[in-house]
């Protein structure tokens, strides 16, 4: 069974949006990204500067290729990259290093620590990417279908953004509660 073109386009738009945002975030603040990459402690130090531009470049390339619906490779590569990131986070969570910044381009400049949520998110996204890499059924879309595909893409991207923001909010709130408790214990004589 092959995947319908409209569904494939929605998934491709979502992934393209995610990769573009991640790349913009990395390019915007290369110094911070270098630190984040280093903090993962997976690459030899000598390779860090190379990967600093290699990863965002790969993200931009994948995002661009994603928008060509006849091309099955960008979703495959995207899935690979997402799983690679998930593995990097998983290894560091296994090492007990929950505090490092994930560097995945979340909202605002608030550091988003790594967590199993993010690993699960990446695996789920990789799953979607693999779906988009399936053989696609090409057919002519009516105007109505084009419109609903475009609107669905917008909706999916916005929902993704909202979930991302919710994860950051939760983390921020936890930090606030922790700080309050510290303040209360500290003010007791």
């Amino acid at each position, binding site marked *: 069974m092959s995947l319908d073109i409209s569904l494939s386009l929605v998934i491709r738009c979502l992934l393209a949006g995610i990769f573009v945002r991640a790349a913009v975030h990395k390019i915007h603040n290369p110094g911070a990204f270098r630190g984040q990459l*280093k903090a993962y402690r997976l690459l030899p130090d000598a390779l860090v500067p190379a990967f600093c531009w290699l990863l965002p470049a790969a993200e931009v390339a994948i995002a661009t290729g994603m928008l060509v619906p006849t091309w099955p490779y960008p979703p495959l590569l995207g899935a690979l990259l997402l799983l690679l990131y998930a593995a990097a986070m998983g290894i560091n969570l296994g090492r007990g290093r929950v505090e*490092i910044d994930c560097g995945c381009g979340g909202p605002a400049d608030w550091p988003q620590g790594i967590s199993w949520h993010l690993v699960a998110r990446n695996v789920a996204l990789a799953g979607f990417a693999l779906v988009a890499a399936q053989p696609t059924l090409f057919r002519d879309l009516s105007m109505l279908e084009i419109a609903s595909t475009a609107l669905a893409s917008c909706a999916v991207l916005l929902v993704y953004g909202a979930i991302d923001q*919710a994860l950051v909010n939760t983390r921020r709130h936890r930090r606030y509660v922790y700080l309050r408790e510290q*303040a209360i214990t*500290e003010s007791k004589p």
Partner: protein
Amino acid sequence: MSGLEISHLLLWLVVVVLCVLVFALMRQIGVLHERVFPAGALMTNRGPQAGDPTPVRQLAAIDNSIITIGDGHRSTLLLFVAPACPVCKELLSVVQSVARTESARQPLQVVLASDGDTGAETERHQQFIRDYQLDRRRYVLSRQLGLAFVVEKLPFAALIDASGLIRAKGLVNSREHLESLFEAHERGVASLQEFLEHG
């Protein structure tokens, strides 16, 4: 267009509008979290208090140059960090940007301090300095300094004015905390606790 098509399109439009609203709400919650985040750094009751003179005036940096605190024309931001402290690393880039902003208003030197002046540990600090491209002339390794300020948790900061008086100090976890030290200096409110009591 048939009625079914129109309603289909209409529904999609409503879905997108709702998604925009959910997204905006989430952002708003994020902004609110930022606003309610404690405005001041957490001050400990032990050690020298705001208003007291600094217990240490001269420090030897890791490259053996001498740092003077309260030299008459520069304030000093003393930040206690450690290579093993994750929040400290997050704070390093924040410190640089806050220091840049504050330097425009008053002459300021930022001194990073840590303990562990023994062989193996010194190597970790050297690595830390290289990784984060820190200034070796403003990096102090001294257990005595931490003891003098009674630093219990990291990252801890103390703002000392040009005359050598401690103006504000406390546990700093975020940009807001760090900025609050400077604000405290200007407004005369020393800490989060003091702010809660009077505010």
